């Protein structure tokens, strides 16, 4: 594999980690959506590039799904939901942004230290992409636990999913990648429909029913 192909793949994967950090410190709801769209765009570019250098045309489907569903449809839908439900205020965080960022840096270091030594035989492209995708997954988990708001938790989950897609395409020749990305899109679509139809509560870190905002006026 020539040097350029490797560098471009590296650029996209590293870019994905950077965008994950941007998700971590963004505290405005609409800003969060825009950055998530960027996240999805970077992952779709990354997958498309992998499809090109691995000569695996089916990966273009995965890239297309990421682009259309996650970079366009989901952010637009969430935007409308947020406006409709009137929850476009700042996002509450647990702990300060500074601490979260520090923890995020620690997680990236951790994932590089974990992945690089054990994937020594797997080839440069695979091992670097895997290290980056583990970092994206861990940052997504960090985001899910450091936000109290359902929409930002979903965005955290979708960024985990982007990390997984990066990992799956980096594992060269892995079968069923397209099927798995379709299965994931179904999850995501259900989550978004879930928020919209069920007016899912702002908080679910407690089972306290009194914490629910009763849009529907009691039991249906």
């Amino acid at each position: 594999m020539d040097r350029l192909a490797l560098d471009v793949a590296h650029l996209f994967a590293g870019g994905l980690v950077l965008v994950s950090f941007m998700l971590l410190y963004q505290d405005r709801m609409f800003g969060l959506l825009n950055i998530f769209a960027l996240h999805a765009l970077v992952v779709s570019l990354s997958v498309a590039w992998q499809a090109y250098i691995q000569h695996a045309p089916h990966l273009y489907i995965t890239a297309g799904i990421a682009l259309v569903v996650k970079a366009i449809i989901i952010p637009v839908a969430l935007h409308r939901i947020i406006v409709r439900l009137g929850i476009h205020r700042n996002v509450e965080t647990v702990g300060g942004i500074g601490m979260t960022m520090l923890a995020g840096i620690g997680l990236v270091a951790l994932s590089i230290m974990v992945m690089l030594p054990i994937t020594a035989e797997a080839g440069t492209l695979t091992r670097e992409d895997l290290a980056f995708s583990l970092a994206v997954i861990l940052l997504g988990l960090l985001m899910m636990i450091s936000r109290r708001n359902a929409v930002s938790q979903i965005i955290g989950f979708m960024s985990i999913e982007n990390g997984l897609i990066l990992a799956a395409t980096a594992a060269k020749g892995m079968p069923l990648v397209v099927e798995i990305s379709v299965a994931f899109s179904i999850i995501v679509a259900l989550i978004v429909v879930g928020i919209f139809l069920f007016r899912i509560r702002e908080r679910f870190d407690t089972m306290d029913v009194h914490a629910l905002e009763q849009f529907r006026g009691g039991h249906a």
Partner: protein
Amino acid sequence: MNESGSLLLYAMLLVPACSATLLAFFPDTKATGRLNALATFLTFLASTSLFFVRPEPGPFLIVDDVNVVFIVLNTFVGFTTSVFSASYISHELDTERLTPVYLRFYHAMYQTLMFAMNLALLSNNVGLMWVSVEMATLTTVLMVGIYRTPAALEAAWKYFILGSVGIALALFGTILVYLAARSAVGEGLDAMAWNVLVKHAAAFDPHLLNLAFVFLLLGYGTKVGLAPLHAWLPDAHAEGPTPISAVLSGLLLNVALFAVLRFKMIMSANPGTLASGPLMVTLGLISVLFAAFMLYRRHDIKRMFAYSSIEHMGIITFAFGMGGPLANFAGLLHMTYHSLTKSAIFFSVGHIAQIKGTQQMSEIRGLTVSHPVLGWGLVLGVMAIVGLPPMGIFMSEFLIITSTFASHPVLAVALGLGILVALGALLLRLNGLAFGEPYGNAAPAQASFIPMFSHLALVLAAGIYLPPALVSWFQHVARLLG
């Protein structure tokens, strides 16, 4: 021979898939419950025939000695639950907790769930197994939220998010397993097929396998309901329809555990890996002790038995973690008895909650006086689940503790403590529920008792006499599990 075998294999998947489509559009609300039961019965028949004909493993589907046990148990409990569900759901329709549209949705989802669980157990491909476990999770999420009360939606949402995170971790583990296999097996479908993976596992990179197993254990462990990843489980059991609680406890937890076991087999086939047992033993023991003490503070009857499921999944995981022919044998037995007993308990609890109109235990008293059959059924079920002799669970718990005592006495004492604490909690609650002055609605039960008592009879019979053929079969599977 083999052609009829693969025909049966497809029947086990096609019958639920087609019935799901049919039931989604079938307008007659009276007959749908029966049709649902009929479909699960046909699936059960197809699965029992797997004892006699064994299709060749393909790239996607496989029947081997290990999964036959799980499949037959899965389809059997699926069938009896659908019989219970028919009477349960017609009551929900009468009291207008569910509309006919939701009823159709419910039955379609029930069949989809059976399809997904069968596919997960039958799949020879780690990716396909992941997709089907995900599908099973999503269908149960939808069913947990079916009553659309704030509490039910909250439970469904919590289950959804925690389940999705678990499933995401499991996928990362699956990708790592593929990477570990790729260097030894080569690219393509073979590097994801079970039978190939186990055969070549010794040549895989042990470090990659270690990392993969951690992700897989945490990911699928979330679905097993192991503490501290169990937070979704009590809510999902308490807020959904009771047949779903029975299927969740009795079957879906087993399916997730089965996934962990398959990967454990790969781990133990590779000499360079970390021992996977201690990880499972630790998680199992934490679950048992945690759930046992939490049982004392429960007020909701379904939530209480959900915690009891966490306890028992902990015991089973503990047993498989200890490994060796005896502990594995005990783990398999315990898993079977737990599925049968816990679903029987939920059958009786479902009817009780319907009659009393509440799940609060403070408002349910004196059941053996007001509803003798249901009440004594519950008493029998609880006696079985806490592990009193002569029921089967006594035997399997005894085997697990004695086999552990021989090698690790401290662990055996800790496990025994957990089991005793849970016994105390459940008997304490049972005393209030079943005996004393009756309280609340005393209307006669319109219930189907056959599923409940057939399960309890099986557990009792197995506790007294286990046929030698069954024993040797379970021993054979236990040896395979390593």
